[in-house]
């Protein structure tokens, strides 16, 4: 049964400093609150057992007005508990809002959310990609988040808490990862029909692997090599080019409306969602609305089987 699988992206197993900052506060608040609940439950259970009306006992209990001492006690103790909680809360609130240092040259990524996909641009490196965010490990990456249409929220539970992406303004946050791996991300603000499936991945790599990836993205292999791929590129320019861009090859226009497909073959997922294989690629291109309701990707079920195969061959050759 699938239900027996372990949850794969819990906030309890952070893989970075930002996630740990949130978890510190979460755990402290859980400890304090467990104490509060325990005290209340202890009194509660005692009272319910001890002071039940016994059959036949119709006496009137003493009418107590209150007790200054007790009332002071349960006013002062919560204040102290809250003060204990407030200190790390404030320090972490400020540390999580830390901005990119001016004197150094940190890695910056501009994140733009669209209904229902993610665009990642590395302004200092001149790279644009989509759906899959690559970051080096053990380094703070500073994100500048904005939206192209409605409000979205960027959430990678294992790396950091959320930040909204608002149209017309830019929010900032930083993330980092201790260990290499692929971390699942979700859109966390209701953004329309496809909200539930606006998934993305963060791929954390060792510094040298990341640098290799950057080099590859700067010099992508986007030219078709086989006859099949050449025909596929032909299909692409006729059908896909006005929305999707592919860098490193000659195209008449450069689509900006949809995810940049440079290096598509290296992505783990299609549309941030389906495992990247030929079967899913065809499913997505033929019936995108069935895969992701509300998507702006039109259906390409009118392509002949041959065109479809060629197109798939071309896309899967992009590295």
């Amino acid at each position, binding site marked *: 049964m699938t239900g027996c699988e372990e949850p794969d992206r819990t906030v309890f197993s952070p893989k970075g400093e930002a996630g740990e900052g949130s978890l510190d506060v979460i755990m402290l608040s859980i400890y304090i609150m467990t104490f509060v609940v325990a005290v209340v439950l202890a009194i509660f259970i005692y009272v319910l057992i001890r002071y039940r*009306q016994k059959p036949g006992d119709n006496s009137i*209990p003493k009418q107590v007005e209150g007790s200054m001492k007790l009332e002071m006690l349960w006013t002062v103790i919560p204040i102290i508990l809250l003060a204990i909680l407030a200190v790390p809360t404030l320090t972490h609130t400020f540390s999580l809002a830390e901005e990119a240092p001016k004197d150094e040259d940190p890695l910056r990524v501009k994140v733009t959310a669209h209904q229902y996909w993610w665009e990642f641009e590395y302004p200092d490196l001149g790279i644009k990609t989509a759906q899959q965010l690559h970051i080096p490990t053990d380094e703070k990456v500073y994100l500048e988040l904005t939206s192209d249409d409605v409000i979205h929220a960027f959430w990678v539970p294992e790396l950091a808490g959320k930040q909204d992406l608002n149209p017309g303004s830019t929010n900032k946050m930083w993330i980092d990862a201790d260990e290499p791996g692929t971390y699942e991300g979700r859109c966390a603000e209701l953004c329309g029909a496809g909200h539930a499936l606006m998934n993305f991945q963060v791929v954390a790599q060792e510094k040298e692997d990341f640098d290799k990836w950057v080099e590859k993205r700067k010099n992508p292999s986007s030219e078709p090599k086989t006859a099949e791929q050449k025909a596929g590129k032909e299909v692409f320019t006729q059908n896909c080019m006005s929305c999707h861009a592919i860098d490193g090859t000659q195209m008449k226009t450069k689509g900006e409306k949809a995810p940049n497909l440079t290096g598509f073959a290296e992505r783990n997922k299609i549309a941030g969602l389906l495992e990247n294989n030929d079967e899913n690629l065809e499913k997505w291109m033929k019936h995108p609305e069935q895969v992701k309701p509300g998507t702006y990707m039109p259906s390409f079920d009118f392509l002949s089987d041959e065109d479809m195969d060629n197109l798939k061959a071309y896309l899967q050759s992009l590295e």
Partner: protein
Amino acid sequence: MATLVTIIVFILFLSAILTGGYNKELMDRFRSHWLWDWITTVDHKKIGIMYGIGGGFFFILGGIEALLIRTQLFYPNNDFIVGRAFNELLTMHGTTMIFFVAMPLLFALMNMIVPLQIGARDVAFPFLNAMGLWFFIAGGILMNLSWLFGNAPDAGWTNYVPIAANEYSAGTGIDYYVLGLQISGFGTLMSGINFLATIINMRTEGMSFLRMPLFTWTSFISSALILFGFPPLTAGLFLIMFERLFGANFFDVAAGGNPIIWEHLFWIFGHPEVYIVVLPAFGIMSEVISTFSKKRLFGYTSMVFATILIGFLGFMVWAHHMFTVGMGPVANSIFAIATMTIAVPTGIKVFNWLFTMWGGKIRFTTAMLYAVGFIPTFVMGGVTGVMLSTPPGDYQYHDSYFVVAHFHYVLIGGTVFGILAGFYYWWPKIFGYKLNEKLGKWNFWLFFIGFHLTFLIQHFIGLFGMPRRVFTYQPEDGLTLINQISTVGAYMMAVATILFVVNVIYSYRHRVPVGNDPWDGRTLEWSIPSPAPFYNFAQLPKVRALDAFWHEKMKGNKEMEPAEPLGPIHMPSNNHLPIVIVLGFFISGLGFVFRSNEVGALGLIFAFLMMFVRSFEKDHGYHVETDEVEKVEKGVKA
């Protein structure tokens, strides 16, 4: 053409009403029907009952929506209800439950009980009271018509722009939300003002502020919150209405607008709204716990001031719903600390309830079971509230199932448990017979266990990375089993709700009349007959202490000492204008939804015309003569 026909029909209708040129015989037949009596009533008890029926109806509707949501989430990648349809369901579920269930059901209890508790014969503005009821019903119907005519609103109950703008929510769905809430909001505001005026002005002799029962106190503070909390919502809804219907650009970034304005306006209303619906529940719990422990409420004065403090602080914390919006660490910190402070007065209340039971003689009636079940449940909702108040924690919890779990603990564990306790407790006062206790206990246990099964686990669903408002999750997410447990719990709650309906019917069929005071009550409402006569008090009582009726009983008196001699009682007369005025607003709302501004304007003109007619009415009510009062009182006693 359609507009022309509408105008002609409308003018004919209007002239018929104004000239009296309608069929007199038909009108007489209408007037003698029992339904006419209910439609035109200004009696606070009848209005309360109608609020209850309306709220109950919408509770079933909202519950069905919740079941559909939980059914869709039963296994990953289910395709039962996806995409926009799912967003419509979650939007309508939230909006219905808050505005058309929690609020009206509380208004039901406030209407039925507050005048009785303060020793009044009616509310301060009975006409306004009736209007408030019809506004609620009109708003609820208008909003739910969206299911029948096209599409329902789909931007969440928070209705954030831009997804609520025309560009991203095509069709008229959001218009139903905007106009439905606007119309029901008018009613809420009127009722709020009405209860403020009633509680300030209509208390009987000796009923000083610090002798008021806690339910009256919490209703009072809640009404004050309505007075200050609803205008920001009204303003925000007008902005969205103008944006959607008349092309204004308050929120459109491309035209220089800012969508964050709506978030602020909504939450300046939205946070106090939480206290509007939970404070009266606190009041009910205080009454029930005190009565069934046979003890005076522990720390009454601190309870009152805690209520006032919660109400006040409730306005200072709205931005904690917006920690992730990007307000910066300074604003986030200020709102975090402000939010934490609310835990202190709330904690005071919890301990006061516990110590009210301490040393008492606890009787576990169904009402008391709900009150007792409420304490740990609400404490859970409270502590997760404190957890949510920390921004670094909130970055993780925000818009995840953790938040869903939190506010259901507060809204069901607080408000719904409170409402159910209130119904079991005051049912005999309103209808003259008790609800069946055996069925009631089944109802409680099923509801209580079902509730915790559904929502306890949702804290973890959220912490394991599931955002809220999503129609599905992936098999590899590892969320399947916990979602299935949650769904099973939801169905248990559905069974419990059906059981409550069964109980209402069963108890009516097998009703056994009860006396004035079936629970050994403490407050004024238990000193008068059950069901309460239409004038409530034959003679207004004189209050000599907190828990006035208990005080008299302890002194050996069977009744309250009257503050006035038996005499003719002045009562307001029934009036059909409230429903007619509201009809005008309803037509107007429907007109604007269908983008027919002529019909929209005509509806408004009609409503204002009817208000004008009302201003010249020379009806000052009527008197119930002394001998008739005596006859009723004797009839009740016999």
